[in-house]
């Protein structure tokens, strides 16, 4: 498989503090890759750099060989790399369906002025948005809550809403920010299934940053492990599970979580 | 919501009717005279002294049986509108006056308001008496505005000339607030001073209207060491502060302004430092005030608790309107008759000793008689009161 997304020697410094040091790895097409690491390992920073929400200090991120780091977030999104957020980042006073419709911005064919005047293309767009939204919500099993206001949703649904908003943009790569955080076992399992079906049925490459070891082991094709801003390991779940450095990094604090 | 609105509307209605019923008790016919000016906010002092002098005079007239114009005796009612120093509101105020059937309005107090109400006044046949100096308001083709006081381009030269001749003033500095009226007055003052052969050593320094501390503002002016410091169009609030700061910075020359000031305010704000400050006033200094002026001051004080020396000038507009109407009763509803009367009108000035006259002037400045002949009384402040420096006439 060829590399779809390449992270090349990416470094981020905040003043004297190095959050990420010289990190490189590739993400292949149609794979689920997880970035894990203990608290403060630099996962979030890396995630933000890949989605261009923060610039790199040095190094670059390539998509199809084209640089996507240090751009504006919306431009990266236009290229097909879309991130999700943790649950608090939603469109609070929109319904689920409205959120998903708004999120189809990139699929619009008409111009903004076209929508204002109500041209034919715009009308077709609007109709298409609705159909796609309903289809997507059904796919995600969210049809029953499609007219709920987002801020009234329980936490589990919020996560799914985040994924729905991300998927509504019809991304090539979906970047998920701690999709399992704060979930109980059942919810986690549902989410795992969801993420998998996103990849399997929609052909979306998934890169996720996560804390929850069992879920990551379960879902990932490959895993990249960070510690203190450095990449310490990369490989399949079973390789990672037996990697000395990883065990050392996680020793004590989160032993039980890894289940070793 | 509906209940609440209803209550609100009901309350307003009740208050309104209550107020109206109190004014409807009079037996005489009522002659309404309008006032559109600023009676709230930063410049409230200008309008309030105006409004109160009208109200005090009206109450006095009504108490003594009314005002006889032609065969009818009228009670005078003052209808005031607070324009908040906003030209848009001033238009609304003038519309309101038209609505009340008023043809004679005092105000507005500032240039922009006076210019903004012009279309309304002309369209509705309203004569108005602004306290604003732009000449275009009074020159043809404009014809409905009558300048209610002495303009700075008229008083300035007399003051400068007096000071040149009597005090040996040779250099002058101007300072003005960064606002339309004061800046225009400064420019007028500078031109007048230059015409008289004075050397203008500083005329660029301005201050924000909201300045509270004038030391930094005045420091560069003081460096030019003028003989005379002119505070162009200074508001009564700023005058004492400016005087105080100038004196504290060691300024020993003369300070003057061409607007009316209040002795009490100067005494409180600058104390002895204000001694020698020259300003333009009406006729209430002991040397000039007639018994009627003294009674007016007394009645004003009784009515509002405290007199304002700015009212010396502002009492005149109402008097002019009434006297002119008395001379030409048909003008009550016909401003053209009023205008025609203005050219020849003359009546004794009740507020001044001697044989001063009320008449319309302005031929020199405006080419038509669109200014009330207020005596140009130049005052000098001394220990809490004004003394008359000299009196001049405007033509």
């Amino acid at each position, binding site marked *: 498989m060829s590399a779809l997304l390449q992270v090349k020697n990416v470094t981020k410094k905040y003043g004297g503090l190095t959050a990420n040091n010289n990190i490189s790895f590739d993400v292949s097409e149609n794979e689920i890759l997880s970035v894990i690491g203990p608290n403060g390992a630099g996962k979030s920073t890396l995630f933000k750099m890949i989605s261009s929400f923060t610039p790199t200090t040095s190094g670059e991120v390539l998509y199809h060989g084209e640089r996507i780091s240090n751009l504006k977030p919306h431009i990266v999104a236009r290229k097909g790399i879309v991130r999700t957020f943790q649950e608090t980042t939603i469109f609070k006073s929109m319904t689920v369906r409205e959120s998903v419709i708004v999120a189809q911005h990139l699929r619009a064919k008409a111009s903004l002025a076209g929508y204002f005047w109500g041209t034919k293309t715009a009308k077709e767009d609007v109709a298409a948005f609705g159909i796609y939204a309903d289809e997507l919500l059904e796919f995600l099993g969210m049809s029953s809550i499609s007219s709920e206001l987002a801020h009234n949703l329980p936490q589990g649904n919020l996560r799914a809403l985040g994924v729905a908003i991300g998927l509504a943009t019809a991304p090539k790569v979906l970047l998920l920010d701690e999709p399992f955080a704060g979930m109980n076992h059942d919810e986690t399992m549902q989410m795992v299934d969801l993420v998998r079906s996103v990849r399997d049925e929609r052909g979306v490459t998934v890169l996720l940053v996560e804390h929850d070891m069992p879920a990551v082991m379960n879902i990932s094709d490959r895993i990249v492990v960070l510690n203190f801003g450095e990449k310490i390991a990369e490989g399949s779940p079973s390789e990672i599970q037996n990697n000395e450095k990883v065990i050392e990094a996680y020793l004590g604090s989160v032993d039980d979580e890894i289940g070793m | 919501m509906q209940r609440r609105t209803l209550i609100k509307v009901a309350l307003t209605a009740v208050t309104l009717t209550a107020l109206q019923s109190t004014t409807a008790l009079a037996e005489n016919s009522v002659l309404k005279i309008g006032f559109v000016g600023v*009676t*709230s*906010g*930063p*410049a*409230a*002092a200008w309008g*309030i*002294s105006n409004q109160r002098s009208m109200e005090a005079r009206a109450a006095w007239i009504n108490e003594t049986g009314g005002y006889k114009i032609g065969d009818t005796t009228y009670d005078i009612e003052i209808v005031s509108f607070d324009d908040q120093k906003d030209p848009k509101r001033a238009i609304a105020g003038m519309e309101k006056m038209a609505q009340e059937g008023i043809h004679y309005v005092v105000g507005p107090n500032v240039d922009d308001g006076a210019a903004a109400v012009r279309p309304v006044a002309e369209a509705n046949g309203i004569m108005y008496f602004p306290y604003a100096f732009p000449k275009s308001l009074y020159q043809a083709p404009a014809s409905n505005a009558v300048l209610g006081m002495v303009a700075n381009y008229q008083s300035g030269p007399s003051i400068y000339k007096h000071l040149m001749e009597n005090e040996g003033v040779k250099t002058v500095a101007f300072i003005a607030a*960064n606002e339309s009226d004061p800046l225009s007055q400064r420019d007028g003052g500078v031109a007048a001073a230059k015409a008289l052969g004075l050397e203008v050593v500083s005329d*660029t*320094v*301005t201050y*924000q*209207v*909201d300045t*509270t*501390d004038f*030391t*930094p*503002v005045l*420091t*560069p*002016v003081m460096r030019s060491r003028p003989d005379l410091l002119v505070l162009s169009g200074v508001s*009564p*609030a*700023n*005058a*004492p*502060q400016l005087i105080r700061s100038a004196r*504290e*910075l*060691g300024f020993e020359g003369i300070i003057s302004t061409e607007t009316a000031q*209040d002795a*009490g*305010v100067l005494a*409180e*704000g*600058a*104390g002895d430092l204000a001694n020698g400050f020259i300003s333009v006033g009406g006729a209430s200094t002991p040397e000039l005030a007639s018994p009627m002026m003294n009674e007016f001051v007394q009645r004003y004080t009784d009515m509002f608790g*405290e007199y*304002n020396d700015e009212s010396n000038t502002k009492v005149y507009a109402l008097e002019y309107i009434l006297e002119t109407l008395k001379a030409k009763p048909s003008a009550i509803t016909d401003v053209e008759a009023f205008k025609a009367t203005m050219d020849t009108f003359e009546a004794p000035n009740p507020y001044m000793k001697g044989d001063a006259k009320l008449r319309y002037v302005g031929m020199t400045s405006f080419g038509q008689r669109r200014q009330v002949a207020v005596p140009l009384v130049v005052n000098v402040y001394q220990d809490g009161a004004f003394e008359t420096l000299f009196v001049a006439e405007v033509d």
Partner: protein
Amino acid sequence: MEQILANGIYLGSQYAMIALGLTLIFALMNVLNFAHGQMYVIGGFVTYTFYGQWGVPFVLALVMSCVTLAIIGALIEKFLFAPVIKGSAREESTMLLAAGIAFLLDALILLIFGEKQRGVPKIVDGVFNYDFRLIMPYDRILICVLAILSIVAFIGLMQYSKTGRALRALAQDRIAAQLMGVNVDRYSMIGFALGAMLAGLVGGLLVTITGVNLGMGGATSIKAFMMVMIGGAGVISGAIWGGIILGFMEAIGLAVLSQYGDITYLLIFVSLMIFLAIRPQGLMGKPWG
């Protein structure tokens, strides 16, 4: 040069005090208090009434200003801001309330204290004059010292007293403060009263120099906003720096640019806009959404 420095310190110290009260209220409740200037004016009028009219000693009159404003502030918080904040979908609604209160206070000031400029007798006579290079009347020096002392006292209060610690906790994180056992409602009221009191105190102090009139309110509020912006909203040290910087900008601008007349403030405003474009959170502030 000495004169500019002295003017800058003098202006800066009084501005900093004005900004402190505003920023305190903002930090605690996210309320942009449009009525701050009016509170300052009331402080001036109260001191004027007690000291200037009734001959009460100046210090006592100052205390009366503080007490009056603290009471007004507490009442406004308890009966207006607190319920509106609770009932409103957006916290911006408090801006409308603050503006309404500014109108109300303006109306009350006009009715109670009148439209005239008011001043009080000088508290100290004489002018310090160093060879005409540095001229500063003694009363200004005294007020400047008093202002700096008040600022120090205020910082001390915020830093070391129980109330101050509670207020700081509240400013940092309302919910966390509540969990820590801080009585949020009570301390919001205390904080608002304290902010209003600061406005009253500076009003009382400055009436001896600048006098007071009802028009000062709105302009004072806007100046205070600018200082808070320069320093960073809701940060105490920011308010102090903002005040000092604005004071010096005025002192320098008025001295250097005097021959161009009208443009000092224009330049101050424009440079402020440029500054904020580069550093949106002000000098000391945290980025705030």
